[in-house]
């Protein structure tokens, strides 16, 4: 891989890095709720400013922060066009076959694109500023009340943590297979989408086979090391939220309330 995948954890010592992972995850949910409920175009202006502030606070290079949305230009354009042409057919300027573009549609398209953009970048800030292990711990902590209705939260967290642990290994393996296939004439860098697609399909099969083999071996190794899915291990104790965690949570909650009321 010639560039790092978006969302890879980057160690740091910023305010955002130091927040409790569970608090950060809750903050993200609150912010996303607020973003989705923002209707006024000016509101999105405010969001972009807030996002810039967040990235600055986290001391993440803007390029890294925006990496999750980069390369999705086509997707944004598609969102925009779909909304433009189909959102409000009764207010259409013109009607060409099934396409009925309207200014309300244009506005809605911009709104949805902005939401998706904010969602991607905010989640990315969380991922980049939180170690994967802390993140799975946070999931486990937030999901743990579900234990009482019989959801196997420990198991879910285990699956998640093992899956995350294998991402770099599988990326490396994919890269190896890709190089081997390139050496035998596969055309991954072809500008022709058809050629590119034809090259990617044969790549998937060996990657999947290898992943299953790994999973098989890992499950043996886990069993050998005494893992039992059915046994209750001691409840993990989580450190309580500190003042800064509560502060971040209240700020995000306030933002959510304000944006939902004003819309």
């Amino acid at each position, binding site marked *: 891989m010639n560039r790092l995948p978006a969302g890879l954890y980057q160690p740091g010592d910023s305010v955002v890095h130091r927040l409790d992972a569970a608090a950060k995850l809750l903050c993200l949910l609150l912010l996303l709720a607020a973003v989705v409920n923002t209707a006024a175009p000016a509101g999105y202006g405010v969001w972009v400013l807030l996002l810039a502030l967040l990235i600055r606070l986290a001391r993440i290079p803007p390029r890294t922060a925006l990496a999750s949305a980069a390369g999705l230009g086509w997707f944004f354009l598609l969102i925009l066009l779909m909304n433009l042409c189909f959102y409000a057919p009764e207010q259409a300027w013109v009607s060409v076959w099934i396409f009925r573009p309207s200014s309300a549609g244009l506005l809605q398209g911009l709104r949805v694109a902005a939401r998706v953009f904010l969602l991607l970048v905010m989640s990315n800030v969380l991922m980049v500023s939180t170690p994967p292990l802390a993140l799975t711990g946070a999931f486990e902590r937030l999901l743990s009340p579900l234990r009482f209705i019989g959801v196997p939260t420990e198991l879910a967290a285990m699956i998640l943590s093992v899956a995350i642990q294998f991402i770099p290994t599988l990326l490396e393996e994919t890269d190896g297979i890709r190089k081997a296939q390139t050496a035998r004439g596969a055309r991954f860098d072809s500008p022709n989408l058809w050629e590119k697609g034809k090259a990617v399909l044969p790549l998937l099969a060996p990657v999947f086979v290898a992943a299953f083999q790994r999973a098989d071996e890992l499950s043996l190794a886990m069993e050998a090391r*005494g893992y039992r899915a059915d046994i209750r291990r001691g409840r993990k104790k989580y450190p309580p939220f500190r003042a800064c965690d509560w502060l971040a949570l209240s700020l995000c909650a306030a933002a959510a309330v304000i944006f939902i009321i004003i819309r």
Partner: protein
Amino acid sequence: MKEAVQAKHLVHTYSPAGNGRRSLDDFSLTVMGGEFLAILGHNGCGKTTLARHLNALLAVQQGELTVACLDARNSANVWKIRQRAGMVFQNPDNQFVSSVIGEDLAFGPRNFGVPEQEIPRRIQQALETVGMSGYEKRSTHLLSGGQKQRIAIAGVLAAEPDILIFDEVTSMLDPEGRRDVLGTIGRLHARGRTVILISHDIEEAVGADRVALIHDGRLLAVGTPREMFTDADLMRRTGLTPPLPVRVYNDLRERGITLPFCPLTMEELEEALCR
């Protein structure tokens, strides 16, 4: 000293009907406590099947097996056996449950119900034993192959087993990583652990107390490395190539030069040639 492993007439087949090829066929072997036993054989000869029995990953189909004085046929003993007999696998990448080394090493002890406050001590001790103290907070992805395999060994050591089973642990490593891992295994044996090293590489078995040769699921012979490797007929039947110093000794003898003794290591060969 007590027996660490005692296998009597073990039979195992992977085909459900029981009429297929036997991966283990009337296999009997005793491993003493504190012994370093190497198990050698070709790929597909039944080595891995045997290893998986020793760790109770495979259930006994026919015959008797006791590991650390626990009857492996009793399913209530499975977890105790896994705690007493730790197993290290071939590919270090497929043994980690967490990318943070400290977290990974805590996995075994946690599963075996070791008290939380004792776990950090165990992790430190395990890392020290494999010569990687201070790596708790590091990521497994940034290690070399040999280091990864040593961490995998530490992961097994953290559960404090008496018996260590190494199943082809060096076959995916570069020469340096291999030397590292074999050195670690040697040290573990020197500290009193029972070591069972499974390999298809004869050079790795030279330092063992005893060598067991397996062929087609059967135990062909067991004895000291010298007895095994210098027996040309036995080597031929197992399909293994003797270590290089033994081959040199044999070739020289064919040409009428007899060395004073048959060397097993390069150092011994040097000594024999210089005499």
